[in-house]
């Protein structure tokens, strides 16, 4: 099967801090794969997600996403792909507190100019019903529990039906019940839509439920 992610990093350098990470790192990911990335703090897990998620293009190496060289994409195209092809499942605090839960979830739709599209509205209803956050749609994030916020973050990540989900410590600060819910939602997406799931976590239980685990180690 063709890999949708083909990443070869020679190194990622932080000039101000004077060190580099991800030296000679290579990664290929196939469609529908469930991949977990683990490692100690500071080895470059989040930096790797930034690169895969098209937030960071300042590294030495090459990156092909859906057979397209990322370095050939304009800033606008990168933003469009982040909007349409990649969903970010983050910690429960990654919501804009001044917006309602509904507006937070609909943010990607707004940037894609499809918020009034009927099929999209239908998808929105299905997702919020499925993950059980209908009652809190008009509430602000700070009025909700951690578990509810985590599900709202998940809803926002999948609202555009992305081909890849990048999850950065999605279960950190959640209790075991809510942690289970989020992991199940991620894997349901994977099962239902063949969505590729890449999860960065410190939690070995979570990591072990993925098909493949990559352990990042500190560079010498």
């Amino acid at each position, binding site marked *: 099967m063709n890999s949708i992610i083909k990443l070869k990093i020679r190194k990622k350098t932080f000039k101000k801090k004077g060190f580099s990470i991800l030296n000679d790192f290579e990664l290929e990911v196939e469609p529908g794969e469930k991949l977990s990335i683990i490692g100690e703090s500071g080895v470059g897990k*989040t*930096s790797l*997600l*930034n690169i895969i*998620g098209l*937030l*960071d293009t300042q590294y030495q190496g090459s990156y092909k996403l859906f057979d397209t060289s990322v370095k050939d994409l304009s*800033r*606008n195209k*990168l*933003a*469009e792909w*982040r*909007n*349409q092809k990649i969903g*970010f499942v*983050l*910690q429960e*605090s*990654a*919501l*804009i*507190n*001044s917006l309602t839960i509904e507006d937070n979830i609909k*943010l*990607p739709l707004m*940037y*894609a100019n499809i918020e009034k599209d009927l099929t999209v509205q239908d998808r929105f209803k299905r997702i919020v019903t499925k993950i059980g956050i209908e009652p809190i749609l008009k509430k602000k994030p700070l009025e909700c529990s951690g578990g509810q916020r985590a599900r709202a973050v998940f809803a*926002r990540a999948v609202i555009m039906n992305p081909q890849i989900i990048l999850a*950065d*410590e999605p279960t*950190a600060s959640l209790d075991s019940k809510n942690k289970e819910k989020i992991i199940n939602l991620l894997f349901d997406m994977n099962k239902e839509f063949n969505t590729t799931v890449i999860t960065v976590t410190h939690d070995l239980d979570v990591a072990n439920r993925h098909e493949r685990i990559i352990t990042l180690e500190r560079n010498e």
Partner: protein
Amino acid sequence: MGMLIILFLANYLSFTTARSIVSTFQGYQEMETLNQEGIYIANLDPDSQPDFDKIKIDDTQKVYEYLNNNYTYALQVDGFVTSLYNEYEMEVSFNYINEEAYKINQFGLSQGNHLNFNYKFNKEEIPVLVGAGLATTYPVGSTIEITDPATQQLVNLKVEGVLKENTYRSNFYAPNSKNYFNFSIFLPVNKNFIQSASLDLHVNGLMDIALLNSTKEKAMNLNDHIQENLGLEFNFFNQQENFNYFEDYYFYSLTIICTITLILLIVIVCLAIWNTLVSIRLMIKDFTINLLVGLSYSKLRVIFYSYFGVLFSITLAILFAITAFDRYSFWLNKDSIFATYGIFGLISMDWIALLIVLFIDLIIGFAIVELTIRKIKSIPISMGVLQ
């Protein structure tokens, strides 16, 4: 709110500077009509110490007799205020003008005919022009019986014409300062009238008198004559001296005002950019979330332009309202010298200044947005800030 105040300051500063420049330019254009070869404009020597109480009407009559016999001169005196009924209940100002001054100024009329200076004072009606504000109360052809403030005699005035709205006269030595004639009566001054006029008109008439087709020598002779009879020391400035005065004083002041304005505008732009960047740094979490879900820098640019467009529109609207109220307050206070007509209360120089502000806003907006976007692009975006 902070940004709104900063941008309003920028607009207010640009507006007052632009209006001052436009008004000075208008005054300078007026001055240029008198700034011809052979014209000498009187100016009371600032170092002289005149004793006006000692001046008698017989002395001033002698000066005007000498003037009438030896010189061609332009005379225009205003500031003689009187009460005359009109629908706006404004005080009415008399403006006395001789034929030469009238020819030079070429005041535009909206109705009626130009002034006739060949009338017989005290024997027939005096043809006058009225300001636009008096036109409905005193239309062309109507007569006004009044005690003339300059001669203190009961006279009959016949309205010959109506001055165009906002006809004005700038101060020779402060070109951005203007008197408007919307509630004025222009009364033609001839030799008979001067003979009957009071000491006030005689003395005030000399203050800005302009000798036409003259020479420095003749101007000095007049100065000697005035000094001998009235004890007043005058300077008579020729074309070059007037131009030099403008260059030395007004052009220099305008350059300083423009430079200060430019420096302040740059400071304000930097402040606005700093304010935006601080806001973004404070909201870096929200900003990162927006970038993650699809906000692009070009969309951000559109958002910024819309944001600053709204802010500038609000500040322009406030500026417009303040200016309109300022103009309207002259009507409320019955200040006839400054009461003006205009579209939504604003006169042409206000509109020109607003257009200049709009143009400056476009430049400021462009500078703020483009420099801010450039700075924002250098802020590293990472999911790390969301942990």
